[in-house]
């Protein structure tokens, strides 16, 4: 916690192909304690593929992936979770017909009793789930409610609260604020900042919103068609630079010109 620069996760030249589609090539990334790494890029750039590898959902077929210096080749997200690496997937990975608290603890259930009488500790799980979801700023009246009956944003909050609760060392968020209102987005961003600065958690934050990214990011990586286009610390980058890269570099100027016919707007004013 004290030494903020210890690398937890190190990827070197990682690649992944689906059949003959190469989704990711030559990606190197270091996630350090207490640092927020933002990954940006167009749709289909390979962001979700990259974090799926880190979270153990799929395995890479090129390069190396090391946690605390030890090379890893996860075959199940369980292995990543056991190392304190947890993710909010873009698809959220919730089970619609299961209740909120069961979803929250799915795969990491708290149990009591022993031997064949080992059973779920329902009360503890319900109370913790309630507290954690509330901390993210939403109110779910009934924790027994199936997740499928929640609104898209509420579902997202449940998934985030869950990842936050179990992501003891590395927290991966794939577009967590996509379906959220202003208040909840704010809470999530604030949480990301506190988790990193105060608890020393390494955060990987994927977003299409450069303002959100710039607010919390310490390090920025822009992916483009499976390759790293930009990889730079915050110190070397302004918000304008970041937006420029995200929008596809020079393409943005042309687009702006086309849309505004030379009106004197800069991208930064959009905030």
């Amino acid at each position: 916690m004290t030494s903020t620069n210890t690398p937890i996760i190190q990827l070197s030249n990682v690649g992944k192909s689906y059949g003959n589609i190469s989704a990711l090539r030559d990606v190197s990334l270091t996630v350090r304690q207490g640092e927020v790494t933002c990954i940006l890029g167009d749709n289909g750039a390979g962001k979700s593929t990259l974090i799926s590898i880190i979270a153990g959902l799929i395995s890479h077929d090129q390069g190396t992936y090391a946690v605390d210096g030890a090379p890893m080749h996860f075959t199940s997200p369980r292995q990543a979770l056991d190392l304190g690496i947890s993710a909010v997937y873009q698809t959220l990975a919730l089970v619609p017909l299961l209740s909120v608290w069961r979803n929250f603890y799915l795969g990491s259930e708290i149990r009591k009793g022993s031997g064949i009488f080992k059973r779920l500790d329902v009360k503890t799980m319900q109370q913790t789930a309630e507290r954690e979801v509330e901390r993210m700023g939403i109110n779910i009246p009934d924790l027994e409610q199936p997740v499928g009956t929640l609104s898209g944003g509420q579902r997202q909050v449940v998934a985030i609260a869950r990842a936050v609760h179990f992501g003891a060392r590395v927290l991966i968020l794939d577009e967590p604020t996509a379906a959220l209102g202003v208040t909840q987005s704010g809470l999530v961003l604030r949480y990301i900042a506190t988790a990193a600065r105060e608890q020393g958690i390494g955060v990987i934050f994927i977003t299409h919103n450069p303002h959100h990214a710039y607010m919390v990011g310490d390090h920025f990586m822009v992916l483009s068609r499976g390759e790293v286009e930009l990889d730079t610390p915050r110190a070397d980058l302004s918000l304008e630079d970041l937006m420029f890269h995200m929008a596809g570099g020079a393409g943005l100027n042309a687009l702006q010109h086309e849309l505004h016919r030379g009106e004197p707007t800069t991208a930064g004013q959009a905030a």
Partner: protein
Amino acid sequence: MNAITESVETRVKRRQLQQTPLWKRILKRPEVGALGGVILVFAFFYVMAPPFRQLSALSTVLYQASILGIPAVAVALLMIGGEFDLSAGVAVVSSSLAASMFATEVTGNLWTGILLALVLSLAIGALNGYLLVRTKLHSFLVTLSTFLMLQGLNIAITKLVTGNVATEDISGMVGFDLGQRIFASNFHLFGTTVSIAIVYWLIFAVIATWVLLRTRMGNWIFAVGGQGDSARAVGIPVKRVKIGLFMVVGFSCWFTGMHMLFAYDTVQSGAGIGNELLYIASAVVGGCLLTGGYGSAAGSALGAFIFGMTTEGVIYADWDPDWFMFFVGAMLLLATVFNGWLRIRALSRSK
């Protein structure tokens, strides 16, 4: 932080909201439709068939229900886990055949036959599960194949071994009495004869319900059937859960097979066909969703009870037994429509 102070108020509000009345919570359970069905069917035959009103009739009904219900409990677990087993009906017979023939023709010892049958039944389940996760085919296809293969093997091997379509009588063998006492004995209760199969059935239903609602494995079964990808993403060993569920069905087939063997002493090699659909129907009437992720083990017991009442009710009412299948079909249709409606209500946002 602002959110913290807010949460205290919302928590108070929530406490009031959580006081959902008991009857409303019961109405949200998957088995509530089957419970209604039990009452209706019972009332129907109570009125239509005077002999149905006797206590001994109830014992017979429950016995019929237990023969269906033991595999149906396991099939319900499997269906909640998102899969089907069409081979369960003939697998029961495969198990009795294996036990009987291995004991009479090979070792001369009943217990080795019983043990071999257990291994075989678990292996059939494991094979179904393994083929499923390996080929990624729909379980309907995989188990349809094993169903047809077992159906053929049951008759072909029996003919090969005994030269007959049925197995030899095992009632003279050493250990038969003990085996019968374990698997197929009767006892007296309130002046009627009650089969021990009923007791086993109820025990299995209670255990399965407890596992589903109160254990980690139960949580995993719901998750695997409800959204397999999400289950995998949180680290649940989806494949192992599925194979395990098929093996539980295998175990239930073995148990039923042993009951049948010790109740009838011989086994007809062509029997069992069609029962797999009754197991599935019991589970569905009991609230299981064909697509998985939703259902109840207790509900499957209620479903089996409904079919038990119908089988016997038709006989007590002195109708042609062929009516039974008509009733099964009609009830399945009614129950699925009703359960679907209930589920939509349960999953709707209203309190």
